[in-house]
């Protein structure tokens, strides 16, 4: 069965500290993986996708097929990074997204 697991419900760090939000998945084929972010009182929006290998707002994520992981990283957290982060998986070309339960990132001053 396809599944996305985000083991941490809450991650609290100080400003300037490194951040790693964990995401593990189970999928038998070649998945497409995404990170979505929801800032306070805003809509859920795409942060980045593995296929484009881009860095958005200083965040990067590398797909590790051996460990079935897609962890989100940022070397120096900023207060404006505080938000809810969701990892999501999609079967190629279906559009359907399977989301993890989300991790709340709290960046303290």
């Amino acid at each position, binding site marked *: 069965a396809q599944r*996305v697991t985000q083991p941490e419900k809450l991650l609290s760090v100080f400003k300037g500290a490194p951040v790693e939000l964990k995401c593990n998945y189970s999928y038998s084929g070649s998945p*497409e993986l*995404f990170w979505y972010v929801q800032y306070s009182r805003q*809509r*859920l*929006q*795409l942060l980045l*996708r593995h296929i484009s290998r881009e860095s958005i707002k200083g965040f990067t994520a590398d797909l590790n097929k051996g460990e079935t992981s897609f962890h989100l990283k940022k070397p120096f957290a900023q207060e404006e990074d505080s938000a809810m982060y*969701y990892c*999501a998986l*999609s079967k*190629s*070309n*279906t*559009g*359907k*997204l*399977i*989301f*993890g*339960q*989300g991790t709340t990132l709290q960046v303290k001053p």
Partner: protein
Amino acid sequence: EAGVAQSPRYKIIEKRQSVAFWCNPISGHATLYWYQQILGQGPKLLIQFQNNGVVDDSQLPKDRFSAERLKGVDSTLKIQPAKLEDSAVYLCASSSPGGNYGYTFGSGTRLTVV
């Protein structure tokens, strides 16, 4: 470009009542999705439309939930009768052909069933 519009933003109903949500996707987006997000969980797909046809409704509780997308544009999601466990945020999203890229969410409708 205009975003995905949803209404109402909030709705409180008693159990066994009916409720309907409306979604207007981004112009030109052929694919439309309804997701249910229960507090503390990630969004879960209820139904996916491609133009006005249903692509995936495997997770839709069809005994009480129904959805339609007339003319391949706006969509409505209905619950009748509502149960307490239907309390959630109902998210609409749309995407351009190809699906996974340019996936845009609406602001959602927060439903509370009392």
